[in-house]
């Protein structure tokens, strides 16, 4: 019978990827791997009798549905809302009060909020663990964990890989968190590929000083070295001058043509939803890993729920 690995997971809340040590990440990835192998009946007893609150103050499709799938797969009951309009927030209740009240009902709280720092505040007032499912433009740690899980599943390891991050590296929170998390691994090489205007910010580069990274404005300049290409969308509104946007946007569209010269084993990832930066002609190729990446959200979120199920902070 498949055994769930014993881990040294040290966190009481999952608020920000910067709270994670390498061992914490590995604990999540190992348990997630096990979740995929566990028989359904066994899995559905792991959180039996527990209640998970799913508080989505801001709408979300993928994240909410994959969390709620994970909750149900583990046999827990789910309470909550998918839109703040139907919660007491509409009556003017503070976030702190909402969370204090819900932490009296639920064993774990999953929350997404449009205000940055909302999850950190929630973790300070809740006696039960908080899982941040996105706080405004700040953190989305479960996305990073599922990205890492996807890489590990595809290559059998994370150490030693060369990973290209392409697109909007200035504002994209997914690439910031991913670069931060990857810096905890060994012999990682990162390639930041973006227009001049959307380069990786200094404070993120400062944070990942320990690893090798290089910056490029053209994908072709580094493509042959890449094991993973992580694509993000470049938004028109990020450019003060629309002509500048038009000039660069074609350069960062990934299709069969732009992948000429890539390694056989190259894998393409994308946090989705995509617009036109990733051509559908790649969907059926050996490079495409993005739909599997989205599917991996479920076992990773199951692992987090499992690891936090008995945490009581006070």
């Amino acid at each position, binding site marked *: 019978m498949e055994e769930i690995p014993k881990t040294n997971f040290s966190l009481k809340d999952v608020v920000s990827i910067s709270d994670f040590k390498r061992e914490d990440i590995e604990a999540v990835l190992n348990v997630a791997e096990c979740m995929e192998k566990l028989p359904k009946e066994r899995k559905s007893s792991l959180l039996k009798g527990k209640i998970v609150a799913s508080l989505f103050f801001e709408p979300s499709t993928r994240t909410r549905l994959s969390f709620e799938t994970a909750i149900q797969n583990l046999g827990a009951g789910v309470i909550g809302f998918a839109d703040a309009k139907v919660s007491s927030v509409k009556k003017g209740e503070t*976030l702190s009060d909402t969370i204090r009240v819900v932490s009296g009902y639920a064993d774990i709280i999953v929350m997404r909020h449009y*205000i*940055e*720092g909302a999850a950190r505040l929630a973790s300070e007032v809740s006696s039960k663990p908080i899982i941040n499912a996105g706080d*405004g433009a700040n953190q989305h740690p479960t996305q990073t964990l599922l990205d890492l899980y996807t890489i590990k599943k595809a290559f059998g390891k994370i150490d030693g890989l060369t990973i290209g991050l392409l697109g909007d590296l200035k504002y994209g929170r997914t690439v910031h968190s991913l670069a931060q998390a990857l810096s905890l691994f060994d012999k990682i090489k990162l390639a930041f590929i973006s227009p001049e205007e959307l380069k990786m910010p200094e404070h993120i580069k400062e944070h990942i000083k320990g690893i090798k990274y290089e910056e490029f404005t053209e994908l072709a300049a580094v493509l042959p070295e890449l094991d993973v290409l992580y694509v993000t969308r470049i938004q028109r509104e990020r450019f003060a001058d629309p002509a500048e946007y038009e000039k660069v946007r074609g350069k960062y569209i990934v299709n069969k043509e732009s992948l000429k010269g890539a390694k056989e084993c190259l894998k393409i990832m994308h946090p989705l939803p995509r617009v036109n930066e990733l051509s559908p002609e790649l969907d059926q190729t050996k490079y495409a890993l993005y739909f599997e990446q989205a599917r991996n959200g479920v076992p990773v979120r199951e692992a987090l729920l499992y690891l936090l199920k008995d945490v009581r902070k006070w």
Partner: protein
Amino acid sequence: MVKKTKDGLYIKPIKKGTTIDHLPAGTAFLVLKIIGTPEDTITVAVRVPSRKLGIKDLVFAENKLLSEEQIAKIALIAPNATINIIENNQVKQKIRLQQPSEVKGLIQCINPNCITNVENIPSRFYIDKNGIAKCHYCERTMTREEYIARIRV
């Protein structure tokens, strides 16, 4: 406490109160804001020649003792300043300021969408060795110039 400049000019010493020395040029007026409305004489010298800093500002506040919060705020503006507490024309206590590594409730976050600007909770920042402040809640960073402009007075 008595400062002689290269030109041989003196700033009048105080008998009792607090002197703040080694303020970076241009920061004296911010320090005055932090000290608040004076009940007694405050002497300010701006752009005084200094061996250590080239030029500096000075603030002498008569009969005034600063609170811990005021000192913490001055440390944000001028982490290398020296505060002297004066009694009977003598330095009773010398406080060499240091850049704090963490500050609570003193600065407003630059991010309008930060929870500390939405709910009534004290802000909290971590300041690194380069003087960059990171919000405990929204994780946005601010340069020294940015957070000095946001000190709550």
